[in-house]
């Protein structure tokens, strides 16, 4: 039978039972819509994470004291990472472009009657370029000022707003844990990253932070930028070797530091996102399967209802395969229509999510195509049994059916 006639006949019979067809395909609609929305959510999260991690700095490596324990727990304080380690790495690993010691802490900051607790980052001047910090106004501190333990600070945009209420912070003197610091630079806005807000901090020379503010002789970590085009794994090995030597760790003993490259961080975060996406998508596809059962149910009803029609068609010369094809086509068509509506629904949900939450979903055309064709496959698969029952009807019995 011509395909056009098949489409026409199928559409007519679906249209004759509008409400029933709609209910039958509702499962598919919801399933496809949910799958598309969930995958778009996951893709959006992945894109956001990639952007954020890249904005941390390119070719970034982070060295932190301590190792993740066997239970994945990292104890809170370590005092074994020294300034000498940073110098050794800089001298012995030529692939390291630049590095900066990092000290993190927080302090009470006062300006006139404004008083707030602010995260403090002690770092070298290289920190700004390693971490992609650009300055809105002013300048960063110099190497000379760092050696002198100058009490200078570069202020994050949000902290500046909190303390100075829109006035220029440049040249102002603030009290940090009682010590006077002069503000010489204002950071450009970077945007909150959830687990850490780069706009709310004071960046001061690491020497000042160690000796004057916190009274430490060890580092909180070392941030490194490696040269472009070198293999991060190779550099990691070299740095690890240097650190083993520095800390006198024999080859068979566990390390007392953690070295992570940006690529690894990204990989870890993306694998978490992927797992979540697959989980959500998997749950959504279950509803697609349930939708298929709905199609099967309604097709069985349709076949029973149209027993007489089947008898007539067989008397007129329809072969079993003609009947099979007709009903299979109908169930595929109904799921395809459901799939189409589901795609629209999924895209609609994505727009809704985008407009309600400050989150942008990412609809991948390939996923839409997959979800759509999967819905067609579900229709064909679950339509097969009812169609087979229709095709195997005995023509005499079918013609007698009232």
């Amino acid at each position, binding site marked *: *039978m011509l395909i056009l006639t098949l489409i026409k006949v199928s559409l007519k019979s679906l249209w004759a039972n509008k409400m029933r067809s709609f209910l039958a395909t509702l499962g598919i609609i919801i399933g496809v819509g949910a799958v598309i929305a969930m995958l778009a959510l996951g893709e959006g999260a992945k894109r956001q994470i990639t952007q954020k991690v890249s904005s941390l700095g390119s070719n970034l490596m982070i060295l932190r004291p301590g190792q993740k324990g066997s239970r994945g727990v990292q104890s809170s304080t370590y005092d074994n990472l020294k300034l000498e380690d940073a110098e050794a790495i800089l001298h012995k690993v030529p692939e390291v472009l630049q590095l900066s010691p990092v000290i993190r802490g927080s302090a009470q900051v006062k300006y006139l009657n404004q008083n707030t607790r602010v995260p403090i980052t002690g770092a070298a001047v290289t920190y700004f370029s390693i971490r992609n910090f650009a300055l809105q106004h002013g300048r960063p501190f110099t190497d000379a000022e760092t050696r002198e333990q100058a009490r200078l600070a570069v202020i994050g945009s949000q902290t500046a707003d909190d303390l100075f209420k829109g006035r220029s912070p440049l040249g102002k003197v603030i009290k940090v844990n009682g010590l006077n610091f002069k503000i010489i630079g204002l950071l450009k806005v970077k945007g909150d990253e959830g687990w850490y807000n780069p706009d709310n901090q004071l960046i001061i020379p690491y020497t000042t932070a160690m000796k004057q503010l916190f009274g430490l002789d060890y580092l909180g970590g070392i941030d490194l930028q490696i040269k472009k085009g070198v293999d991060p794994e190779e550099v990691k090995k070299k740095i690890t070797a240097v650190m083993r030597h520095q800390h006198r760790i024999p080859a068979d003993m566990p390390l007392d530091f953690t070295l992570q490259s940006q690529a690894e961080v990204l990989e870890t975060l993306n694998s978490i996102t992927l797992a979540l996406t697959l989980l959500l998508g998997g749950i959504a596809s279950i509803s697609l399967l349930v939708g298929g059962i709905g199609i099967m149910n309604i097709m069985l009803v349709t076949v029973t209802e149209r027993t007489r029609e089947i008898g007539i068609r*067989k008397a007129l*010369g329809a072969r079993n395969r003609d009947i099979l094809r007709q009903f299979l086509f109908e169930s595929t068509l109904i799921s395809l229509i459901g799939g189409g509506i589901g795609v629209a629904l999924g895209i609609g949900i994505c727009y809704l999510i985008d407009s309600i939450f400050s989150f942008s979903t990412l609809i991948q055309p390939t996923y839409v195509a997959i979800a759509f064709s999967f819905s067609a496959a579900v229709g064909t698969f679950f339509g097969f049994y009812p169609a087979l029952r229709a095709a195997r009807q005995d023509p005499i019995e079918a013609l007698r059916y009232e």
Partner: protein
Amino acid sequence: MQDDGENARFGMKDHFQLRFKAWRGFCVGVTGSIEQQGAFIMLVVEEVTKRYRMGDQEILALNRVSLTVDRAEMVAIVGASGSGKSTLMHILGCLDRPDSGRYVLNGRDVSRLLGDELARIRNREIGFVFQTFNLLPRMSALENVELPLLYAGHPAAKIEAAKALEQVGLASRMYHEPNQLSGGQRQRVAIARALVTNPSIILADEPTGNLDSKSSEEIMAVFQRLNREDGRTIIIVTHEQEIAAKCQRQIRIRDGQILS
């Protein structure tokens, strides 16, 4: 030979085709094929038996039935309900197969054919007309008539269907759906559908059973005209004496056996 016949059938004038069929039958006759004893025989039923099982009881629906129908003959099969006439019609219509015996239709033994082959015979050789019309709802008269041709893969189904509707005087009702037509008109659509493939026999099962007397007469007039003017072979199954009387010959059946 069979295929040539099929191909030649479409696109020729009806009478020419019928002559061709007769000629083919004649060829089979002179070459001494056992399938056909003469050029003018349309179908032969030989010693056909059919049993049914109803619960643990076996019913002998047809008991060694034999009959012959000539080409261009109009025959009535008459019998009360339960006489076996429905079973006979199912076998004549290739909807069912006999348990034993032979059924030769248009020179071909069809009594041992299976599923798809039987469907093909039904499509090409037999035109059904039912008591309850059995038109498909939600499809226009034209689409209903078109249907057998679509299953045959006919390239110009619409044109042929329109011609068939014209033959039964319904050219103006082509795009009406069955529920917009009267009973008599519906049955005429059904007749057009039976005609459209240019079958060997038209098999009508109580064609006037659901019609008033005026429509009945109209329908019978259509059958008679098709038989006389176009030389169609028509078999009408009925229990009404009035209808049977309009046929050239009556075959009476009772308790699964032919009486006359």
